[in-house]
């Protein structure tokens, strides 16, 4: 409940800022009308950029992959000795 209140108060502050900008006319009025949509689009763009950058920098850890394959082999042998059918071969 408190997190929702925090988000709601943030939204109220941002909209108050926007209406204040509209009234004070520091920036030309046509620009101020387009500001919320611009920020939403740029937020979506930023999210997409973070996803792309994370995909590019994802580590693959080849040594750990090798160790994992060895562990899988050992586990299969162990189970086969005990009579459990592992079934993937």
């Amino acid at each position, binding site marked *: 409940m408190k997190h929702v209140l925090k988000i709601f108060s943030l939204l109220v502050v941002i909209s108050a800022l926007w209406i204040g900008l509209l009234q004070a006319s520091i920036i030309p009025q046509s620009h101020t009308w387009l500001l919320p949509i*611009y920020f939403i689009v740029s937020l979506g*763009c930023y999210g997409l950029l973070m996803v792309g950058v994370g995909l590019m920098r*994802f580590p693959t850890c080849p040594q750990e992959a090798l160790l994992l394959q060895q562990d899988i082999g050992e586990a299969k042998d162990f189970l086969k000795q005990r009579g459990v059918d592992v079934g993937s071969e």
Partner: protein
Amino acid sequence: MELADRAVGFLLSLISLSIFTYYTFWVIILPFVESDNFIHNYFLPQEYAILIPVCAGVVLLCFLCMFIGFVMLKFKKKKA
């Protein structure tokens, strides 16, 4: 395998950067340029700068609602 991931990530970041620069240009810089400059030929009329994101948002919302409804129906049918 990781090359495909890298390529997809690079493509995504390229798309997002190009959309960001195009939209920034469209909304912020273009109103300050005179009407008969050649650069206006490369950008759609200004009404589309609002229409396209709003339409995309509405389509996304519809898609989300349809997906949720679909999953709920499938779950209810499986339970009964």
